[in-house]
């Protein structure tokens, strides 16, 4: 066989379709156990790290003397490290785990050569760890969302290719049959992310464009990260989980085609709304505004699909922890989409740009929508992959309530106080220092909300750790039993 053919045969993820579905899916779940569990575990770790750093930066805003003596803990570095831990440590890794598992499941393919995934996992975490440490020691790059040192980017790109190629291969070799909307979302996200990452790193760090073109690329990158990478993955998850658990089809499913195409068509244009009244030509600003307003279409239709499906089965949604997270995420998406369209116009942008409002909108999308959808995915996927149940229902409930209340409080506070801050800044009679002082209450709300969120995540980590320890013990015991080292007759569970 020529080398190409043998390579293709090596990576071919097709499975034996004569097997019954439960057995087949069980095999797929078992095969992905290691990588998915590792990605989720590390993602959770980074989530906790990022949230604690966000808490520290929130405390520093209320009390500038907090941890103030050290250069490596100055506010700018802590904030940048928090953002990038959350984006690359938590967000990307959770997305990888979900994309791998969901794509393998829906395509009924089995990823082979998991060693590649383990290596990619190690390299990705190494790159993010080194990057975050570098932010503390040498400072951020001061391009928001791209604060990791550019030297980390090639390693991350390499890891990404190693991970994404499996998911794309799964799609390419999928089992014959109809394709579900989640698969389109995942495919689009996996193909778009490396392009936006590469363009951003190239145009800002490796072959820097002149002047504000870098800033344009920066805002395009951050916006595309939210709408073309995180949003499609989260939508893929919610579109899958709702009908799966409720046992009913998505309401108005034929409209999901519209969601898919309009989301990825308009999402890439919406970046410049961050630069309204900024130093870019008027047409760039107008394009950003139009892109944002047109995003109302996919958000509205996705809300119709998902929220009406949920609203028709409220009891089932309420009783399933997975669906609570998923529906909360869908509600947050609707809110973010409409608020974003409204706030992007020039009149409103004059008030809210350059205030806490924009941070609230980004968190609305990243935390209240994407992260909650990822939590739903974790609660669904991990039991299937590890073959165990979550040990504690109380911890799940605690996690849900603290995350939901914390993120809602944080987002609403940032919106409300950002609006007030903007109105005061636009009034030249108001002294700047009094605007700063007026932010005192926002700081308190922010600290409380982030602390609440952190508690929830800690609870999730405990729950996961407990469950994983059980799985590891069981695995270890059964290994020892097979080797004859475990006393015969002992329970292997």
């Amino acid at each position, binding site marked *: 066989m020529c080398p190409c053919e043998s390579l293709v045969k090596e990576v071919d993820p097709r499975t034996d379709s004569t097997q019954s579905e439960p057995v087949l899916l069980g095999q797929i779940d078992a095969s992905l156990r290691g990588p998915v569990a590792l990605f989720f575990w590390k993602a959770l770790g980074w989530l906790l790290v990022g949230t604690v750093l966000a808490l520290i930066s929130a405390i520093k805003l209320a009390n500038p003397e907090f941890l103030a003596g050290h250069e490596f803990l100055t506010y700018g570095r802590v904030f940048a490290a928090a953002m990038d831990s959350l984006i690359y440590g938590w967000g990307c890794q959770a997305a990888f785990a979900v994309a791998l598992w969901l794509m393998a499941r829906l395509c009924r393919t089995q990823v082979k050569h998991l060693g590649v995934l383990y290596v990619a996992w190690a390299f990705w975490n190494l790159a993010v760890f080194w990057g975050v440490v570098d932010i503390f020691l040498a400072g951020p790059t*001061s391009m928001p969302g791209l604060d990791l040192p550019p030297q980390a980017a090639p390693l991350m790109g390499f890891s990404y290719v190693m991970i994404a190629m499996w998911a794309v291969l799964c799609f390419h070799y999928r089992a014959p049959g109809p394709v579900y909307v989640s698969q389109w979302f995942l495919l689009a996200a996996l193909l778009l992310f490396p392009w936006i990452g590469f363009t951003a790193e190239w145009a800002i760090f490796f072959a820097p464009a002149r002047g504000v073109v870098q800033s344009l690329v920066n805002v395009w990158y951050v916006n595309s990260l939210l709408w073309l990478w995180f949003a499609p993955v989260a939508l893929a998850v919610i579109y899958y989980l709702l009908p799966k658990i409720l046992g009913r089809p998505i309401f108005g499913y034929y409209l999901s085609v519209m969601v898919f195409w309009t989301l990825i068509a308009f999402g890439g244009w919406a970046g410049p709304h961050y630069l309204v009244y900024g130093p870019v030509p008027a047409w760039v600003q107008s394009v950003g505004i139009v892109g944002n307003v047109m995003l109302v279409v996919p958000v509205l239709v996705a809300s119709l699909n998902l929220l009406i499906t949920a609203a028709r089965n409220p009891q089932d949604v309420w009783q399933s922890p997975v669906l609570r997270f998923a529906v909360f995420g869908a509600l947050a998406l609707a809110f973010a989409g409409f608020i974003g369209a409204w706030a992007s116009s020039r009149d409103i942008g004059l008030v809210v740009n350059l205030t806490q409002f924009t941070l609230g909108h980004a968190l609305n999308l990243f935390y209240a929508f994407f992260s909650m959808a990822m939590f739903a995915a974790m609660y669904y996927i991990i039991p299937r992959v590890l073959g165990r149940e979550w040990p504690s229902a109380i911890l799940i409930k605690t996690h849900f309530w603290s995350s939901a209340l914390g993120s809602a409080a944080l987002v609403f506070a940032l919106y409300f106080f950002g609006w007030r801050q903007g109105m005061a800044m636009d009034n*030249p009679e108001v002294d700047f220092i009094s605007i700063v002082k007026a932010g005192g209450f926002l700081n308190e709300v922010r600290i409380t909300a982030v602390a609440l969120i952190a508690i929830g995540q800690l609870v999730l980590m405990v729950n996961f750790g407990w469950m994983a320890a059980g799985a590891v013990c069981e695995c270890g015991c059964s290994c020892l039993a097979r080797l004859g080292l475990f006393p015969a007759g002992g329970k292997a569970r």
Partner: protein
Amino acid sequence: MKNLSVLYCGILAVLIAPWCGLILASNVQYGGLQPGATEDGDPVYPKPASGIAEQGRQVYIEMGCVYCHTQQPRPASAEVMLVQTVKTKEGPKIEPVFLSPDIARAWAKRGAVARDYIYQSRPLLGFMRIGPDLADVGAHPIAAADSDWLYLHLYDPQIKSPGSVMPPFRFLFTLQKIGDQPTPAALKLPDSEPLRAPAGYEIVPTGRAKALVAYLRSLNMDYELPEVAYP
């Protein structure tokens, strides 16, 4: 989805469209700007930064100042200095061409345009104003007149702006024993300052602090360009 090639082509198209239409078009249109002069014979602006100011720029980047301060003053003034004769149904009317209050706040004398950033190897536009806009801080009367103001503000922001949430940058200064005479650059802290140097000692800015202050004082938009004049 029946036709997979439609899917792949579609994804490619939505990838290429904003890449070309936004980024490539922007790079072509204003990614190669040169400094400009308002009239023939006038000096061209902006000017490239000099040595110590560039070092200070690195310090600014390393400290993450961009997460609280912007450098993008928005155009025109709330005092509505620009007017325009506009065609309306009732006939020609003189209407204000209004915009932001950044100029009324004396943060700058005019809005920023793309050409202001062509010599910045990494434009530090910022995205949040927890602190004021700094694009024109070098021309601000306080910073221009009193060279100590910026040093004192960096050492302890509460001296000059009580109630500020800016973190202190004391690590950019060193405590040293006073030699035969006090160093001219030593900070003159007010008596009420809780972190005064003990007797016999003085607080002196390090090279990084000096570079940072030199950079801040070099931030100056006090020139006109062909596409924008003072209001």
